[in-house]
């Protein structure tokens, strides 16, 4: 394929016809009129090459709407070619004309006009060229399929042939004769999108897919004041970074720091990604935000920059006193996210004098000016190559990431690709602004709209590029932008009207988003007119039709109502009369035309909505069951394209109205992933019926976006029709609707669950350790003798069969689980094990003479295994399960020694275990052993089967199950008797009870146990996670018979003597339930909640939505998905007294499952805060374990576990 020439190359090229126009860029919404205007230069709109190629150029870009297809249709129509013959170039700064930002759905309505004229001019020129050659009149000739022909002589020449050998530069004729609409063959007919086949096969190149030779990967680290862009602290909060904190990550090229800008460049993407998460950064504390969660007052208290009175007709002050019925209303609009599915990405290449930037920007030319300012260079040195990105619906982080990319490319002198993370896009994208609309007014005695005093407050600006602010190149002074006035004037006839706009600086980073300010303003207008209709006792549709001033609006509304089979209401039917049980049904209507651009602006398409809803008065859930939308865009270039855009706007705006609202913490935006900012999913879709007005004789209007604008009011009016309650602040979530119904007395108030304090955890476990007990310990034999070192023979004296047996014993003992560090060399030790007494590091188990156990004789090994005494005589801590290993048979012990000594020696020194007083005193362990090491060995029980005995041997000996699954007393000893296997704790994980005392809904059966131990997963109980995943992985090497034996023994644990060791000389420091015969008495494992309230219904609030968005996708049966889909209703951790395992799983995920067949789970530690996770846990408990008491003090527990992640 021939390369596409840039503007300068085209101007110098031969064999081409160029259609030119002097540049005339419109002002950016964020650009001040005083900004330097560049002198006009010639821009190319159309190029027809000698080889026949037709290149059409447009300054607007494709934001995912398929606009390129529609533009090609327009050019093809005027040129009498097929759309596939027209290649569209959108947005590239060195090729396409500067036509300003791609906003307001204005591409077809405004920027396509010169393109169409260029094509018409070109056609006329080609006709004249051919006429001159054939010496006839141009009007004797025709054009068809890219050729000019003479019907009389049958002569014809292609466009390319007419251009060959020439370089023709023509000015676009502003008065060129355009093809009559009634002759259209292409425009007005649906065309398939040109880009979809490539997108459906992975051939399409988004900006995310740009790969440049030598390209490196960048990530940025953003400040903690997420989503803010005003105040002295912006760009001024970094205290320092610790470069050593990422020294362990290979491939790091540089860390660039400028002001509050921090970026990392690495060879590979995962290296940059990881370094960005692990780099230690110190920030100054950020000042508090106003309480934006109380949005009405936050906007009210936000200083107004300027009040603009747009309309002041009649005498509003007097009229307000004269109204027959006066209504004073306040409407509040929440902050929304654009929520692009792909976080923004850019590639920059700064080399020599040239700056190339591959970008998904909405406004390439404005971006170029910003980058020139950031880099302090002439903008002619910068070229923006525009690629499609994920749909953006307004200003997202697409420009910001270009700033990041140029700074990092400049730092390393290589091309750098910067990919923002999901968290960064969520936190920092300029939000669709919150808005406050206040209406005072009312009706006259005859019911007509009489007075309307409307004030709208819009705290937003154009969101300056982040890199400019973070580096301090531009001061972060909040500035207002006059953009709150879109559709600020209602379409109805009022006798007296005043419309005012309060332009105000943003409170958090905000900019335009689909239906900017028009959607909130219309929510107010259309909710209010609905109230007036009700006050007047008239049908809401009829009332609107009566007072609408625009004939086209009336026609559209009437047709939409007819289409929806609207049944007029007189006001005599009480709202809520359409009822089935607790479900009430209703219908609502709203109309709007999106008026955009600088006031008074332009009108885009007209749109009317009729929404059908069902409201569950118990739960507060609103179900939008059906939406009928009428849409009049005049001439539709590509009716299918228009229909798809209307669909998109219906679905997206329904999502915004029902579900969406950005939440904030004290200093910043709080929502970092889709669980905390959920959007509409497939099961929630309404039925949609769209009616497109076909008016080809009317000029084309901006399509699609208008369809968003009436949504909120239509749904709110339907809720009113269903319940009699007016909702004046979206989103209409169950909790907000419940509150409104309660306040209106439609629904009784419910008691909130009360909370109880949490029982102390392990800290009190330590606190109970008495001084007297310590004294007892210290008195007993402090030291044991060292056993002499040996030198291992060069060849193993053991047989291959013994070594093979030893391998099985080694697996059954799960030795490698603790003696291998995360990512470290097998059995070389160094894994930190969190115990209540401090961190114990596992030792090097390989036969290395210096750092391992190479100098240990079998005698020394045997003593260590059975008595917990190291070769040199030091006592080992009982985190090493010698109390269990004493039960290993002599033969197994020999084989184990043989196996370990046959393994490769690894020289590795591990961190020394240092525990705080008194546990740091190893001699005390001698006393511990006296107290707790069982004196009895496990013995075969002749009354049981061989399988049972084999299971018992493995569980009590090698398997050392009790080391984790038995509770320990205050001194760290496993409890025995009926506390055997009654649940314990390891490395911060709860090891659940294996006897009958667990909290699970379904008891463990022998097949369950077998499945779990063999595969790491039981459908009835969930997957093995944390340390247990590693245990199951090790046990993969055990023969099936052994796994069956363990399952058999554990399943029959309660029937037989619970433990081989029912006698202990140890002082029991809690009331020892020695005489208890039921395992129920053992319920008192740590952290049993007190008599907490048991919930009966699952929570139905943001936590439920978070679960649905973040968790539910995987946690339901999906045989077509890789890995298991654990059912949380039977999951042991959800039913446990402690939330710890669930918290660990949510925070850190499951990245090392027992087997990879089980699949993986991501960790949410970086994406959810403690409060969000606590809410999620409350929901899961209420939903899946409603018979269990609510967990208490969750946020503290989460904070503790976050700070103590353990090593599994």
């Amino acid at each position, binding site marked *: 394929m021939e390369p596409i020439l840039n503007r300068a190359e085209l101007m110098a090229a031969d064999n081409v016809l160029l259609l030119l126009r002097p540049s005339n860029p419109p002002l950016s919404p964020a650009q001040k009129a005083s900004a330097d205007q560049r002198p006009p230069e010639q821009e190319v709109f159309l190029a027809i090459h000698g080889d026949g190629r037709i290149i059409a150029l447009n300054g607007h870009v494709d*934001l*995912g*709407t*398929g606009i390129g297809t529609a533009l090609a*249709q327009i050019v093809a129509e005027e040129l009498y070619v*097929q*759309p*596939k013959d027209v290649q569209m170039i959108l947005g590239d700064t060195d090729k396409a004309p500067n036509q300003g930002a791609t906003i307001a759905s204005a591409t077809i309505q405004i920027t396509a006009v010169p393109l169409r004229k260029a094509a018409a001019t070109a056609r006329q020129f080609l006709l004249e060229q051919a006429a001159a050659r054939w010496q006839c009149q141009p009007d004797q000739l025709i054009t068809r399929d890219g050729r000019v022909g003479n019907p009389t002589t049958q002569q014809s020449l292609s466009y390319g042939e007419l251009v060959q050998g020439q370089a023709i530069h023509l000015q676009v004729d502003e008065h060129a004769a355009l093809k009559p609409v009634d002759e259209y063959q292409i425009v*007005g*007919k649906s065309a*398939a*999108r040109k880009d*979809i086949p490539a*997108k*459906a*096969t*992975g*051939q399409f190149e*988004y900006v*995310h897919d740009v790969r440049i030779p030598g390209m490196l990967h960048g990530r940025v680290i953003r400040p903690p004041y997420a989503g803010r862009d005003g105040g002295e602290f912006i760009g001024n909060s970094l205290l320092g970074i610790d470069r050593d904190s990422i020294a*362990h990550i290979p491939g790091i090229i540089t860390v660039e720091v400028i002001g509050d800008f921090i970026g990392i460049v690495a060879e590979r*993407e*995962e*290296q940059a*990604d*990881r370094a960005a998460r692990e780099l230690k950064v110190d920030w100054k504390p950020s000042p508090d935000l106003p309480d934006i969660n109380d949005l009405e007052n936050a906007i009210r208290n936000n200083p107004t920059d300027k009040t603009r009175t747009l309309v002041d007709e009649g005498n509003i002050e007097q009229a307000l006193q004269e109204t027959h019925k006066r209504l004073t209303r306040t409407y509040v609009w929440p902050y929304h996210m654009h929520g*692009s*599915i*792909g976080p923004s990405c850019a590639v920059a290449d700064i080399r020599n004098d040239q700056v190339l930037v591959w970008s998904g920007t909405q406004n390439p030319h404005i971006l170029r000016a910003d980058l020139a300012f950031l880099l302090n260079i002439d903008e002619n040195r910068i070229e923006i190559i525009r690629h499609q990105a*994920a*749909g953006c*619906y307004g200003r997202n982080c697409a420009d910001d990431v270009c700033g990041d990319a140029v700074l990092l490319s400049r730092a390393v002198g290589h091309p750098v690709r910067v990919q923002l993370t*999901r968290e960064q896009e969520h936190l920092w994208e300029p939000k669709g602004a919150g808005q406050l609309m206040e209406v005072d007014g009312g009706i006259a005695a005859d019911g007509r709209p009489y007075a309307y005093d409307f004030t709208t407050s819009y705290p937003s600006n154009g969101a300056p590029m982040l890199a400019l602010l973070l580096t301090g190149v531009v001061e972060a002074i909040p500035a207002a932008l006059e953009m709150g006035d879109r559709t600020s004037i209602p379409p109805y006839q009022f006798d007296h009207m005043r419309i005012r706009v309060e332009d105000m600086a943003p409170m958090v980073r905000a900019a335009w988003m689909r239906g900017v300010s028009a959607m909130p303003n219309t929510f107010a207008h259309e909710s209010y007119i609905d109230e007036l209709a009700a006050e007047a006792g008239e049908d809401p549709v009829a009332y609107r039709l009566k007072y609408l001033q625009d004939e086209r609006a009336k026609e559209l509304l009437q047709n939409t109502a007819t289409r929806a089979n609207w049944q007029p209401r007189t006001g005599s039917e009480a709202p809520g009369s359409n009822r089935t049980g607790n479900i009430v049904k209703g219908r609502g209507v709203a109309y709007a035309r999106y008026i955009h651009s600088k006031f008074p602006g332009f009108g885009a398409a007209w749109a009317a909505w009729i929404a059908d809803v069902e409201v569950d008065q118990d739960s507060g859930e609103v179900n939008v069951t059906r939406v009928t939308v009428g849409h009049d865009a005049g001439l539709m270039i590509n009716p299918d394209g228009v229909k*798809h855009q209307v*669909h998109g706007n219906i679905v997206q705006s329904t999502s915004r109205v029902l579900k969406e609202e950005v939440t904030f913490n004290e200093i910043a935006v709080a929502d970092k*992933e*889709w669980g905390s900012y959920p*959007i*509409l*999913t*497939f*099961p929630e879709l309404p039925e*949609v*019926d769209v*009616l*497109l*007005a*076909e008016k080809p004789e009317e000029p084309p209007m901006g399509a699609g976006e208008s369809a968003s604008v009436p949504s909120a009011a239509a749904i709110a009016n339907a809720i009113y029709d269903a319940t009699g309650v007016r909702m004046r602040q979206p989103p209409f979530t169950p909790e907000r609707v419940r509150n409104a119904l309660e306040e209106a007395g439609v629904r009784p108030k419910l008691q909130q669950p009360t909370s109880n304090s949490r029982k102390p955890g392990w800290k009190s476990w330590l606190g109970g350790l008495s001084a007297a007990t310590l004294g007892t310990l210290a008195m007993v034999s402090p030291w044991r003798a060292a056993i002499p070192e040996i030198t291992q023979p060069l060849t193993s004296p053991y047989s291959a069969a013994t070594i093979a047996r030893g391998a099985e014993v080694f697996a059954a003992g799960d030795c490698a689980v603790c003696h291998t560090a*995360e*990512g*470290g060399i097998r059995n070389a030790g160094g894994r930190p094990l969190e115990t209540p007494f401090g961190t114990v590091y596992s030792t090097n188990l390989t036969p290395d003479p210096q750092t391992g156990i190479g100098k240990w004789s079998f005698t020394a090994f045997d003593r260590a295994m059975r008595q917990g005494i190291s070769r040199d005589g030091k006592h080992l801590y009982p985190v090493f399960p010698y109390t269990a290993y004493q039960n290993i048979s002599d033969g197994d012990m020999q084989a184990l020694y043989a196996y370990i000594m046959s393994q490769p020696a690894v020289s590795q020194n591990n961190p020394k275990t240092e525990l705080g007083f008194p546990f740091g005193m190893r001699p005390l362990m001698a006393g511990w052993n006296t107290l707790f090491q069982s004196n009895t060995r496990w013995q075969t029980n002749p009354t049981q089967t061989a399988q049972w005995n084999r299971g018992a041997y493995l569980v009590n000996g090698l398997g050392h199950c009790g080391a984790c699954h038995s509770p320990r007393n205050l001194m760290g000893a496993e409890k025995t008797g009926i506390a055997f296997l009654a649940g314990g704790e390891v490395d911060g994980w709860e090891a659940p009870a294996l006897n009958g005392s667990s909290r699970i809904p379904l008891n463990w059966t022998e097949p369950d146990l077998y499945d779990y131990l063999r595969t790491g997963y039981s459908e009835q109980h969930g997957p093995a996670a944390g340390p247990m995943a590693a245990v199951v992985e090790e046990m993969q090497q055990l023969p099936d018979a052994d796994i069956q034996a363990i399952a058999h023994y554990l399943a029959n644990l309660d029937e037989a003597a619970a433990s081989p060791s029912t006698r202990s000389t140890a002082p029991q420091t809690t009331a020892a339930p020695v005489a208890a015969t039921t395992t129920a008495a053992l319920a008192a494992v740590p952290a049993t909640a007190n008599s907490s309230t048991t919930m009966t219904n699952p929570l139905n609030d943001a936590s439920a939505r978070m679960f649905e968005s973040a968790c539910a996708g995987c946690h339901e049966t999906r045989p*077509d*998905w*890789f890995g298991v889909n654990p059912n949380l209703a039977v999951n042991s951790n959800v039913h446990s007294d402690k939330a710890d395992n669930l918290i660990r799983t949510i925070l*850190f995920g499951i*990245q090392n499952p027992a087997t*990879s067949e089980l699949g993986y*789970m*991501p960790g949410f530690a970086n994406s959810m805060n403690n409060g969000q996770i606590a809410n999620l846990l409350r929901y899961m408990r209420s939903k899946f374990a409603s018979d269990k008491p609510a967990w208490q003090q969750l946020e503290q527990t989460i904070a503790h576990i976050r700070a103590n992640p353990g*090593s599994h």
Partner: protein
Amino acid sequence: MNPTATQTREITLTVNRQVITIQADPNSPLLFALRNDCQLNGPKYGCGLGECGACSILIDGKTARSCSIPLKAAIGRQITTLEGLSQNGQLHPVQQAFVDAQGAQCGYCLNGMIITTTAWLDHLTERPSEADIRNALKANLCRCGTHLEILDAVRLAVANKFPEADSAATRQPQTNQPQQDQTSTNPLEENSPWNRF
């Protein structure tokens, strides 16, 4: 959490029926290896948490979210991406259904929609209900609001797999022939200024 966990090693993958050997950290996300080492555009980074589905791939024919699966999980398994669905220049029937039903606006989520639908259909033995269809894509997010066209595409793909089923299940009759000319020749209804869709 442990500094030693970034050891790069040689890893052999089978991606779209081709064997490729790369040097990478086996614990790093599979998505990065597919995009950067295998140079594939199909799987997209969307959330890194398995919430949105943009990164979906097939592992041994089942849907997997490559952003939150480590590279090591792919060892010894068959990986198929969007690029690998079509064979010999012929679109996979699910891809064709999405093209025919115009099931994309920006198209960033399209990879996940097609991959998820493919694995789901492959595992179906009975004709699914409308609720089944919606549930199958419940955990795939689309922000453009292309849901209606995407559902049309899935219904079309379902009808292809279960051909004896009622063809009215597809809202728009569509052909499965690759379109040479991308311009539809179907004129709009001419009787009324109100064209029904």
